[in-house]
């Protein structure tokens, strides 16, 4: 038990160091990029060419293969942002503050994708681009939360103050997550319930949900890649006075 605790502590301190994160991400990034390109590419071909059409919705059903992964990521990105923000707030961990900051624009992007593809899916299927029902409204609030956190970051010059204030806003916004998740069960809405439920077989045939599962995995890998790309920029920006960043910059060729 003590050994395990020591191990956790060691990794916590290591990962908390921006330089360690930068070095280790240099090694992992190419693999992550390859995996996400493979998964998304394979998933896309399956989704657009091989998945059968829905007997009610027809071909429009294919939008599910980007809508659901994007919406799922929109929530997960917020959860990750709020967790990192809390860790940064409590233990003043630099790397956690950086992760919390870079999650916001990426999460906003995926929320935007979920909202837009949902609207485009809604028009031919249910006859409207938008209604103010619980799921759609809470998703829109999520989008505005992300935008609020981003503009707060942009408005505060001091990085420590910015990290603190955005962390508090992010933590308050966590209330919205269960509302989004359970809105389709708590209220009567136009939105259909979740496709994948924990420990339950999905209600669609395998050639429909397999591509969805692949796209989900692909989107999650892609998310990790996007977080790492942004975090690396943020590290270089913040540590520009340190010796290792200067050496790193001087070592790279002119581009």
């Amino acid at each position, binding site marked *: 038990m003590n050994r395990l605790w020591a191990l956790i502590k060691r990794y916590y301190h290591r990962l908390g160091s921006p330089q360690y994160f930068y070095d280790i991400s240099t090694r992992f990034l190419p693999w992550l990029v390859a995996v996400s390109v493979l998964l998304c590419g394979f998933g*896309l071909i399956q989704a*657009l*060419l*091989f*998945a*059968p*059409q829905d007997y009610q919705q*027809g*071909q*429009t059903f*294919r*939008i599910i293969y*980007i*809508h659901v992964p*994007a919406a799922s990521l929109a929530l997960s990105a917020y959860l990750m942002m709020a967790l990192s923000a809390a860790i940064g707030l409590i233990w003043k961990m630099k790397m956690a503050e950086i992760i919390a900051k870079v999650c916001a*624009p*990426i999460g906003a*992007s995926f929320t*935007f*994708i979920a909202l*837009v*593809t949902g609207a*485009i*899916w809604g*028009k*031919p299927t249910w006859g409207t681009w938008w209604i103010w029902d619980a799921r759609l409204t809470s998703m829109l609030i999520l989008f505005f939360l992300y935008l609020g956190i981003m503009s707060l970051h942009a408005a505060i010059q001091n990085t420590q103050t910015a990290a603190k204030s955005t962390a508090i806003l992010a933590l308050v916004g966590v209330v919205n997550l269960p509302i989004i998740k359970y809105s389709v069960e708590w209220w009567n809405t136009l939105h259909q319930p979740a496709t994948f439920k924990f420990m339950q077989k999905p209600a669609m045939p395998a050639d429909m949900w397999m591509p969805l599962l692949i796209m989900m995995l692909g989107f999650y890998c*892609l998310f990790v890649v*996007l977080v790492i*790309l*942004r975090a*690396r*920029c943020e590290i*270089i*920006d913040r540590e*520009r006075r340190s010796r290792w*960043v*200067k050496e790193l*910059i*001087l070592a*790279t060729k002119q*581009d």
Partner: protein
Amino acid sequence: MQFSSFSELIQMGGQGIFVWSSYGITLLVIAINVLSPLLRRRALRKEIKHSINREVRQHESNS
């Protein structure tokens, strides 16, 4: 394979516009998300290189 020809794939029985615009917008948003850190990285590199060079010059003129 669900489609017998390329034009059938594009049209998707009249629903192609909805499907393809969704996929197009998604691709665009993801492309922006990939490009923006790459561009920022380049700008940062230039900026930091300049400031290092300036420091070196100042150091030389002082000594």
